[in-house]
């Protein structure tokens, strides 16, 4: 059992221990690292940046607390950008345990709007965000495909009441807002496969401009839809969130998490290389034994 064999069969719990230690160290020490911007994220930022005041952006937040880590930075950055530019936001949460979390996120962002901020050189005054005027949160309904189809007729069909139980007709922002044709665009931030329904049943059937913010694992899956023009932008996982925060000049969790990401990736790459070194050494050794053995 020489050094190479041991390299090949390290018990996986050493890998876990080593990864934990390194991530904690990277988390505690804080220094900034540069972020590279991809065109798929920039197209979403410029689309919203050029929207006139009072237009309505529809953000279906179809994720649950599990994928909150990757997707909250995107939601925070986009919703704050909209509210700062006085763009109205309509929100649904079609993942079964997402509404509570979405409601809490909206309250956090509304609090951070009470402080004046300057982004990319433009200074924005503090602003009190009002439910029903600046945003409407419609809450959750099961079976996303049916809800998306129904909202094509009218938001009121699946959502007679909003999340807080007030009838939708009594909300000022919803007057004249019936279905997808009255929206500037939809940005589906999702950790579930509701995004497939948004692309084939939503955008496919009603043709509104759609961009998506998804978890890292399913980013690759949606590139064909970017290629065929069914969506105009993709934000992929924590990196997508960090790039959007960089573009919006609004640093948040995503940017300072990138440091831990870097160290973790280095650990994994190191272990993979070690495994392969061990592998090649044993292969060469076995070949040599076969030659001698013959």
């Amino acid at each position, binding site marked *: 059992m020489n050094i190479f064999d041991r390299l090949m069969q390290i018990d996986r719990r050493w890998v*876990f221990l080593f990864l934990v230690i390194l991530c904690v160290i990277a988390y505690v020490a804080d220094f900034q*690292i540069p972020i590279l911007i991809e065109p798929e994220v920039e197209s979403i930022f410029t689309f919203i940046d050029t929207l006139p005041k009072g237009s309505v952006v529809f953000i279906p937040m179809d994720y649950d607390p*599990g994928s*909150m880590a990757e997707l909250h930075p995107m939601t925070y950055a986009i919703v704050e950008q909209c509210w700062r530019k006085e763009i109205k936001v309509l929100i649904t949460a079609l993942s079964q345990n997402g509404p509570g979390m979405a409601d809490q996120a909206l309250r956090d962002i509304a609090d951070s709007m009470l402080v004046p901020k300057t982004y990319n050189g433009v200074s924005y005054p503090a602003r009190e965000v009002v439910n029903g005027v600046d945003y409407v949160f419609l809450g959750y309904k099961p079976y996303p495909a049916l809800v998306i189809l129904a909202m094509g007729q009218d938001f009121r069909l699946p959502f007679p009441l909003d999340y807080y139980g007030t009838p939708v007709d009594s909300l000022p922002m919803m007057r004249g807002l019936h279905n997808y044709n009255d929206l500037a665009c939809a940005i589906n931030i999702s950790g579930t496969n509701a995004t497939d329904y948004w692309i084939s049943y939503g955008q496919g059937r009603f043709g509104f401009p759609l961009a998506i913010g998804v978890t890292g694992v399913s*980013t690759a899956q949606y590139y*064909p839809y970017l290629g065929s023009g069914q969506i105009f932008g993709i934000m992929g996982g924590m990196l997508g969130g960090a790039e959007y925060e960089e573009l919006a000049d609004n640093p948040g969790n995503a940017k300072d998490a*990138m440091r831990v990401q*870097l160290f973790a*990736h280095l650990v994994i790459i190191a272990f993979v290389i070690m495994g392969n070194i061990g592998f090649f050494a044993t292969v060469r050794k076995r070949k040599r034994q076969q030659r001698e053995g013959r």
Partner: protein
Amino acid sequence: MKQQIPRILVFIFGIFLIFQFFVPHESSEWVFEYLLDWNIIIGVFALAVGIWSLFKVHVEKIRTHKVGWQYSYITLGALLSMLIFGFTSRNGDEWGWFFVFWLSAVMVLLMIIQAMAAKGNTLMSVILAGAFAVIAVIIGAADNAWAFHFQTAEPLQATMFRRSFDFVLISIHATMFSLLAFFIASAAYRAFRARNVMATLLLLSALIVMSRFNPYLEPIFGEYLARTSNWLMNVPNLAAQRAIVMGVGLGIVATALKVILGIERGYMGKG
């Protein structure tokens, strides 16, 4: 009778819905929405069967003292607690007798389990279950610091429901999910071995993409790493996705047609 009628039903509904897609007329849309409502309602009813199966499996585990049977009490107790939290909410700020009600309800459940699981004298647990049930009913009726809400969605905002979701469900959910960070490392270490051409291609493209945002490799590779991983995601990955999406599309249509035409009967048990 048991086989023919289900197969005929699948055929009728399947064929109807295939052609409904091509009929935009108002009545066809109305029937489509109505049928989808059927699926939701059947789903809601089926949940009761599911909960019953969960209850039976855990009672069985307790009865036969299978490995880890003590923990089944926790599952059933947690299930009942969440149902109680989900149907009640306080009128004012005090709790009144709520927690006593909750405890007696849980005790009723434990006694019922004891009665179902115990081999010998179930009389004692049945009496105790009745006693606790009476206590729970009295508190439920008399105490007006809190109330039951079956029609309005008020309990969703109630403290206990919100708290047990935010702090218990989210904590375990997010932690289970984050175990993937470790498992992806151990899987990469265990499986990324350059055994043959295919495994080597898998390994190389993974390594390139994993170091795409690495600023320290920038002086060596410049922005080629980011551009290469972008190319890997947009060209070979796109080709792979497209082929699989189309293949899966045909596979889905083939399987659905086989089920509708009755060629494939596995789903109804006919092997």
